[in-house]
């Protein structure tokens, strides 16, 4: 009888152990998979994109967050989903998104991670030997990711694990929303410019301020040089600059001519001559050197102080690159000999500017 009682007691004790073990197992599994799958929330979560343009390729993704739990950290799972950032839901890959070629180019905070192979099109697992971490900010930069091909929101799900392969219980978790857009393009056309005007006076480097077109030398005398001036203003975005050419016949009065100075020479009162230059002079006092933000200069024959010349068709000034505003003052001198026939001498002079684009 006592043996039977003992056996009953032993059987009861055995069943009690089994019962307790069952309860413990259920409790453990419940805590493992139900109550603690997602751990604690990661804070300060963000995803910076180097481009949020739809379908952009080779985009940099900089993922950052604050580690919440101080424990062993061996892996981080990053999922990109089209539907939502919630771990309870299946993850639908964003259309066209591809991180299979992603490269981990930088990491800070908790470091030592590499990308665990193989990599699916919308999931990256960072792995390292499981090491105790510290609370604080971390960031991981990936290159060579292709954006979704659909405009709008997509989501990131982040989970940290003590295991090295994102298995087991997640430590911390967090979601991020990101966004793609179509391109914002800005275009502008800059046309070829040639800004050129001539007048007796052009003030403030502005052709709107040009005035006068007639140079009156007055009465010529053999003892005094007659002089006058006019202005040329030029600017162009021609990348090879410009040339200003002079065209004209010199001073004539019917069949009588005041000869033009074909070879650069000084002013010689008493000798019939007509010439020009584009610089300042003291003999006579006339003209000024070119000025303005541009860099063009008169050609050599027209760039000597007190030396003058005039040959129709000559290039009198030029630049080999685009020119901001440049004002040239053309000085005219006229001398006559005592035998110069009387008459009204006139000349029409054309200045032609040609830009080289």
């Amino acid at each position, binding site marked *: 009888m006592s043996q039977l009682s003992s056996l009953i007691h032993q059987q009861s004790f055995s069943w009690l152990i089994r019962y307790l073990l069952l309860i413990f197992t259920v409790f453990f599994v419940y805590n493992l998979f139900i109550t603690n799958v997602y751990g604690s929330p990661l804070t*300060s979560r963000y995803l910076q*994109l180097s481009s949020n343009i739809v379908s952009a390729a080779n985009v940099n993704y900089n993922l950052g967050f604050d580690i919440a739990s101080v424990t062993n950290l061996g892996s981080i799972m990053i999922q990109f989903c089209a539907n939502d950032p919630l771990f309870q839901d299946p993850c639908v890959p964003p259309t066209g998104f591809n991180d299979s070629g992603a490269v981990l180019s930088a990491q800070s905070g908790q470091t030592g991670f590499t990308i665990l192979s193989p990599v699916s099109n919308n999931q990256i697992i960072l792995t390292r030997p499981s090491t105790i971490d510290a609370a604080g900010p971390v960031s991981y930069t990936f290159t060579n990711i292709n954006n979704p091909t659909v405009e709008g929101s997509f*989501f990131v799900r982040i989970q940290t694990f003590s295991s090295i392969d994102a298995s087991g219980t997640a430590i911390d978790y967090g979601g991020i929303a990101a966004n793609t857009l179509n391109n914002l393009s800005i275009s*502008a056309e*800059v*046309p070829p*410019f040639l800004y050129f005007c001539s007048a007796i006076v052009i003030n403030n480097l502005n052709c709107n301020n040009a005035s006068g077109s007639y140079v009156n030398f007055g009465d010529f005398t053999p003892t005094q040089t007659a002089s006058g001036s006019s202005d040329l203003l030029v*600017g162009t*975005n021609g990348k090879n600059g410009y040339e200003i050419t002079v065209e004209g016949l010199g001073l004539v009065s019917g069949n009588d001519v005041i000869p033009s100075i074909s070879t650069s020479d000084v002013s010689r009162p008493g000798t019939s001559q007509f010439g020009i230059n584009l610089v300042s002079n003291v003999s006579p006092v006339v003209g000024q050197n070119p000025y303005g933000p541009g860099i063009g200069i008169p050609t050599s024959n027209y760039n000597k102080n007190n030396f003058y010349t005039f040959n129709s068709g000559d290039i009198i000034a030029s630049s080999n690159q685009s020119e*901001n505003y440049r004002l040239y003052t053309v000085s005219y001198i006229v001398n006559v000999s005592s035998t110069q026939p009387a008459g009204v001498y006139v000349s029409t002079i054309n200045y032609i500017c040609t830009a080289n684009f």
Partner: protein
Amino acid sequence: MTSFYKYLKRTVSGSVALLLLVALVVPSLSHGNVLAAQMSSRSITMSDSAESGGAIVTGVGSGTNVTYKVSFTTSSTANSMIVDFCSDSPIIADTCTAPTGFNAGTVTVTAVTGNIGTTGWTQGGGKGSASQFAIYNGTGTAAAAGAQVFTISGVTNPSTASTSNAFYARIYTFANNTYGTYTSATAPGNYLDYGGIALTTNQIITITARVQETLAFCVSGAAPVSWTTTHDCTDPQAAVSPAITLGHGSPTPTLDQTAVDTGTVYSQTSTNATNGAVISMRNSNTTCGGLSADGGATCAIPAIGSAAAAIVAGTADFGMAVGPSADDTNGVGTLTPAATYYSASNYVFTGGLVPLSTPTGNTVPTNVYYGMNATNVESTYGDTVASSTGPIYRVDDAYTFAATAALTTPAGIYTANMDLIATGTF
């Protein structure tokens, strides 16, 4: 015949009266106390009606650590009281089976009205169990006739293993502080006042609500004032291409040295990011940050710089100005423009938040200052142009891009693909 009828009538009436008298007296005799009276205004209010032993193990819905507020009105002064909890019936002296999983054995009592539960009233005294609450007046004041209200904290409700949600309480009071002649729920002895109460447990209502991280950001060529359908990024107007052609004249608008030409695009941002959102701008011309005619190798129309400044016609520059944000319909929050792109004293539009409030034909005043930090817009993640410090909803912004050409700006088609990027920090 009439006499016999009267005799019969008297006999029946007398029998009925006798039966009624017996019916009134016998129950009182069976309770052992001819002075017993049924309590009035009996109730027990539970702080949690969930069954214990369910999926929820703590807090509301767990059926544990429940507070019972017990109320009744007595007609006699009492010095002890018992509450029996039974799964089968509230009838005094009937069979009482303890509710499965129920436990009121280790509770705390607090008086609300009356003396039960005040100082000097003590639980136990030879009574009390998991299904029985017993309390007596040891050194305190007797509970006079009248309203008695007290709470019992720490009760565990019947569990999910119960066959019925209903369970019952039977309350008795006693004249002395030793529970009179009470021996059990089926033999309650000489109680004074008594009463039964029905209680029930319920399935808890589980409410789940998911608030996920959100970031809605769109850029449109149409001013938000014209987004009249939905007022958000789903509005058809929000899909208007944000492409800008800077220039003036016709048929082909061109840039030249005579004017500063402008164009405006608009964005709307909504996010529940706790730490706010940042709008960054990046230029596809990653080596020069301005407008380029050679695929970004050089920018003959350069970025104006990191300090907001006027763009002067004839001095080639490219910049952008963003003004104060505006809340669209039902909008909440603010995006603050960055100093590089906003100068309050140089962003003065007649009539308020133009161009946000003007659907077309925006006229940008000449006093507007622009910025374009070349270094930053060339960088990997761009330059911050506006930001918020917390969640925002339907916040509109206007971005006015401006450029002018110098006389020397080489002829060409100048382009830049500007990438406005919204980043939320959750």
